[in-house]
């Protein structure tokens, strides 16, 4: 079956697109790609910091979707962002991609010379990523996703926690981040706070 004109793919749900793709309609895979690529790339760019690596990993994520027998009932977006954030986080933590990152950075530097303000931004990014790699994995993933605008419900689905505990986990994640980031910048961000007062 193919999706022709007058049957705009934009109006079709992810689940239906996936089902049609499983039946052999490649156009439906492209529609899923169009719909989710920017966000997947966004997650990966934030975690890796280079365009080249984010693109490579985004391709890995979509390749997995292409090759993996997802059940149509499964939440495609939830699956995609889960794989993206796990992949990106692993890249952030893993040293074996460092070389690749350096090469990618070199490729990125084929652009006009970097002004000083850009240099300090790169340093800032390095510190933020450093702090993310020091806090618990789930906390880091939740912070990135929330920052990108995912709702609590979506977050719960992506990181596989109960929707009711997202707020608490996010609050803890922010505290952990501040602590780690404060340490790395020697700033005054770190601050502990107890949960609900006892009375």
């Amino acid at each position: 079956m193919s999706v022709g004109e007058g049957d705009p793919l934009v109006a079709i749900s992810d689940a239906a697109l996936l089902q049609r793709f499983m039946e052999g309609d490649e156009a439906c895979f492209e529609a899923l790609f169009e719909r989710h690529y920017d966000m997947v790339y966004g997650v990966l760019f934030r975690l890796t910091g280079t365009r080249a690596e984010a693109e490579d990993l985004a391709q890995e994520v979509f390749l997995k979707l292409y090759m993996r027998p997802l059940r149509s009932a499964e939440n495609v977006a939830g699956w995609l962002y889960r794989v993206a954030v796990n992949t990106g986080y692993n890249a952030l933590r893993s040293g074996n991609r460092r070389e690749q990152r350096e090469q990618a950075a070199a490729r990125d530097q084929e652009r006009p010379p970097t002004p000083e303000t850009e240099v300090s931004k790169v340093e800032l990014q390095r510190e933020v990523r450093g702090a993310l790699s020091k806090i618990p994995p789930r906390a880091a993933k939740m912070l990135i996703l929330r920052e990108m605008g995912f709702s609590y419900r979506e977050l719960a689905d992506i990181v596989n926690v109960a929707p009711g505990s997202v707020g608490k986990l996010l609050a803890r994640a922010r505290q952990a981040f501040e602590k780690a980031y404060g340490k790395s910048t020697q700033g005054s961000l770190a601050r502990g706070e107890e949960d609900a007062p006892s009375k």
Partner: protein
Amino acid sequence: MRHPNNGLLLAYLEDQANSRQKKNLRIHIEECEVCRARLERLKDERQQVSGALDALSPGPLDQPDRRRALAALKMTVNGRDKLTMFEKIRTNKTIQRVLSGAAAVAVLVGLFSLAPVRAFASDLLSLLRVDSFTVVDVDPERIEELAEAMEEQGEALFGEQEILDDVKAPVEVATIGEAADMVDFVVRKPLGYGEPDRVTVSDSGQVRIRPDVAMMREVLLTVGLDAELVPEEVDGEPFDITIPESVTMIYGDGNPDEYGEFSLMQMPSPTAEVPDGVDMQALGEAMLIVLGMDSDEAARMSNRIDWTSTLVVPMPIGYGSAEDVEVDGTSGLLLESEPMEEGGEPGCSLLWQRGGILYMVSGPANYSSFVKVVADSLN
């Protein structure tokens, strides 16, 4: 209302609380100075963190380029034709669909990334109630030939497959106790390893497979085997495979240095219902021949196997080894495997059954003595 916890306050601040919560919180915050101050602190904290994380957003030169990315992906997908047969099998969505329902059975075996082996193991050789295991050596070249032939057949590889009870994605829970409350069997844990990093619970599932004998015979003929190896009597008959609920604990996740990364999976033994009149021994013998065994050896082996209770684990020669070991007061099977495809990881798994529950401890390669220690420590 008591003072809300930080989570609820944050949900309120970020407009993620439900309407009832919002109403209660609004009233409470208006009246409570302490919580107003807490809310302010949360707001500050959010702003600070958000400000820092904002530095990671892609700048104007790093915006996504969808069109280029899609073109690159298409090139990669097309280039995959040059890859191994195993990869091709994987990218064939018809085959994937047929296999996906039975894939849960493969969890038992864990190390089989090769689809056809999985299919034979789960669809045809794992029967009735599993309470013991045996390993048969299979010829990797034969597997590849079969894979190729099956791919050419395209549609309906093993016949019709019907999901009787769909398995939902595993749910992550916080503690072993929580997992134990969700399942109908006693959940055990290894002693001396602390709390697991992750605990997941998978619900049960059931799949019905009706073999298509004509199709299977054609596959056999393509690789030069006797078509009659697949008996006529199984054609269209329902084979129901039930995979019960399971609990998996992962230790050392992301921090394998502490005491190694390993997982423990436990579930009641899976069952399969086979139609009346099917001669399991003859069918098993045929499958052994299909997997590359000569007919005399297959007959001998088949006689030794109780096909109603044995999970037969096909081990491609040269890609792994198996050993019978004493574990948890019973006998188990220790498997060391090498990946059959690029990017696969070598690993080891220890599989045993006690009191109707199937256990599997898995770890990285060369950890066989370690997984045995873990297995023996179960409470």
